[in-house]
């Protein structure tokens, strides 16, 4: 049964029996049969004798190592809360937990004293996932991570990058941020 040929299975299709295999990802056991729960390609794993279905249209969840785009919803001295909107490279919306946090120690490559000087509510942030379980921990300690779009705290207009500072052309206010090297260069902003 463990051929390398690609076989597409549909939900409800029998992929093996309990005597042969253990039910893996995308399958479940019923009446001694192992049944696929997803539309996908069957994978027989000889190592642990399990069958799984690799979905053709997988559900997107935030995973360790992903690069994510999110909006800042809360800022404290030592912690920023980000509502993750998209996983980079994935078209589909996120299933499950979407709230991530950035700790001061993981905000930039150098020492950060106060995160309130680096992030503001409403900023769009690009970050990397360091930990997905039990809670999502993000890091922006690389040049390409950080704020990719910021709004002026006085007039809420979009801000421009001016050296290492943010500048509002409307009300001439300057602010500080942990700016990503991709500031203003991302598609769709």
């Amino acid at each position, binding site marked *: 049964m463990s051929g390398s040929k690609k076989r597409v299975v549909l*939900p*409800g299709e029998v992929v093996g029996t309990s005597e042969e295999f253990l039910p893996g990802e995308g399958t479940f056991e*019923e009446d001694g049969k192992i049944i696929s729960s997803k*539309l996908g390609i069957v994978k027989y794993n000889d190592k642990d004798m399990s069958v799984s279905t690799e979905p053709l*249209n997988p559900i997107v969840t935030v995973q360790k190592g992903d690069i994510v785009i999110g909006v800042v919803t809360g800022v404290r001295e030592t912690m920023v809360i980000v509502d993750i909107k998209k996983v980079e490279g994935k078209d589909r919306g996120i*299933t499950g937990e979407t709230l991530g946090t950035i700790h001061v120690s993981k905000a930039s490559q150098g020492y950060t004293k106060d995160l309130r000087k680096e992030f503001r509510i409403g900023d769009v942030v690009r970050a990397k996932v360091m930990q997905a379980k039990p809670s999502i921990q993000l890091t922006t300690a690389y040049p390409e991570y950080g704020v990719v779009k910021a709004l002026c705290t006085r007039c809420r207009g979009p801000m421009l990058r001016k050296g290492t500072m943010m500048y509002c052309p409307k009300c001439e206010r300057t602010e500080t941020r942990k700016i990503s090297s991709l500031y203003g260069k991302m598609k769709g902003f």
Partner: protein
Amino acid sequence: MGMKTDIKLIDEKGMRIDGRRPDQLRPIKIEAGVLKRADGSAYLEWGKNKVLAAVYGPREAHPRHLQDSAKAIVQCRYNMAPFSVSDRKRPGPDRRSVEISKIISEALESVILTELFPRSSIDVFIEVLQANAGTRCAGLTAASVALADAGIPMKDLVVGCAAGKIGDKVVLDLGKEEDNFGQADVPLAIIPRTGEIVLLQMDGDMTQEELFKAIEMAKEASLRIYELQKEALRRRYAIVAEEEKEEIASMEEIKEEEE
């Protein structure tokens, strides 16, 4: 239902108004993955019925008080387009569409492995573009294909089909005239693998024997429709596989050109 008319729904040869035999379905056409922006979608034509179904999720359930910490909720919206019937239908939810939404979401919930996605919502949208009797079964059939297309874990697909009673005879899959002037309409949905009934309604009345016969007929027909659903999903991913092949081929061409 039950209107007194002199319309003959079954002729001397036992044929129906549209020339079908008593146990004959209307022609069905299913296509999966027709909408780009939805997570999963399906388009279905069932005789003169035309139905679009789209699925989103599992995603965070809104408003928050609807969330269930143990499982995902299945939210369904059955909607008829204003131009779906001969007299313009006033747009928006009404008593009928709210009821249909509820029974369809309950039927779908019985197969979806909701416990895998706590606090989430799986949203199903069913748009009836053209109606000609039997849209709840058509909608449910399309929605289940869309769910599978969205990669949502399910125990099996769900299939709906109606049976009814016209001219004192039990027949399969009522058409518009048969629904309007017939004696009973019994929409039914099953889980094909187990034969479990997940939706059963009856408009009009029939005897116990007739009802059992109607259920048998609809069940048998559902299995035929199930094959069409599976075929549609297979066809969808045969196309995807081909597109990927083409993409790889064109990428290789570019590489060669660069060299």
